[in-house]
């Protein structure tokens, strides 16, 4: 999952210092893997170089970590494109999908849309597997079925999440 895009998504709710950003990230998405400060600052300097964030204010004399960062309009475009582009199905996709849903809610976008786009993409993959299964031999069928059950599990989780969006929105909206 992209740390850069996640930080950008968090910045969309308002400018923050690097330290706040790390704290917000760890609170929402870092249960298993909190960010290192090094990661935060190297990511921020890359985002700065690419014009996706800008320095919004510096508190003088207190070192580089007192810079406040704000998202630029190019950054907002990147976050938006990321959120509405479906993920390629892969194991442990849920952490990326969860992040996208939460950021969509935080920013007042349609989380249902994130889910719908993902469902359409998963179903398209599942149709291909189903066609292959119908014409293939038993080995093909078994391999395709394995993939189909995993994709179905993703989708069932998405449906359940969709059904809980209102509740989730209350918990994540600042």
């Amino acid at each position, binding site marked *: 999952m992209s740390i850069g895009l996640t930080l950008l998504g968090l910045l969309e709710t308002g400018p923050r210092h690097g330290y706040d950003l790390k704290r917000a990230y760890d609170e929402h998405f870092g249960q298993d893997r909190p960010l290192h400060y090094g990661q935060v600052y190297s990511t921020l300097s890359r985002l700065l170089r690419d014009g996706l964030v800008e320095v919004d204010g510096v508190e003088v004399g207190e070192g580089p970590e007192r810079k406040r960062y704000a998202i630029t309009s190019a950054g907002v475009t990147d976050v938006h494109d990321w959120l509405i582009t479906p993920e390629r199905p892969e194991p442990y996709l849920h952490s990326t999908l969860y992040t996208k849903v939460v950021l969509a809610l935080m920013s007042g976008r349609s989380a249902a849309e994130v889910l*719908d786009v993902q469902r359409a993409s998963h179903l398209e993959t599942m*149709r291909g597997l189903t066609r292959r299964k119908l014409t293939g031999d038993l080995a093909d069928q078994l391999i395709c079925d394995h993939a189909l059950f995993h994709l179905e599990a993703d989708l069932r989780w998405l449906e359940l999440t969709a059904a809980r969006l209102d509740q989730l929105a209350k918990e994540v909206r600042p």
Partner: protein
Amino acid sequence: MSAEIDGGPLLEAVDVHKAFGPTPALDGAAIRLWPGEVVAVMGPSGSGKSTLLHCLAGILRPDSGTVYYRGAELSSMSDVARSELRRTDFGFVFQFGQLVPELTCLENVALPLRLGGQRRREAERAATEWLERLEVADVANKRPGETSGGQGQRVAVARALVTGPKVVFADEPTGALDSLNGERVMKLLVNAAKDTGAAVVLVTHEARVAAYSDREVVVRDGRTRQVELAQ
């Protein structure tokens, strides 16, 4: 039947609203079905999938909005004309087969043809062919209560297709089956529909079942949504 529009959709619902008392079930639903295509109708429980299917099939009359079948307005037809249309042009498969329990499976499949005025012998010959095609010839002389769920559903598919319908309406046809039997029903249903050129409206909340469709329409809170993927 009536005013057929060549090249137009087979079945179309436009801005359909339907409420049951204070409960809105459909709130501006729209769908188009083209000849021969299999469309999955997906969405959470209570979102309005079955209500949409019933409106499309002329079983329910929308409060407002229009359903067209081959260019003709379903809702303005008389009840007699609509039930005639259901018998000649539509086939139905529901979650629990809804076969007539007093009749044998063969008689169940022959029934729609008998109701259409066919002689018993011809009707049963056609029914036998369909039972073979659905791989349930062995239960022909059993009553539905003496078959397994999977066999019963395949008999129900045979009954839905025996009249050569233009549209098959299937509401959770595999809902009561395990994966293996569900897959078998879907494979036979979709293959038979493709062979005969019937379009299918397939209501399901299972993605593996929906994967047998050509495309999906999602119903949420009584509204339909179709996602177009880029590329």
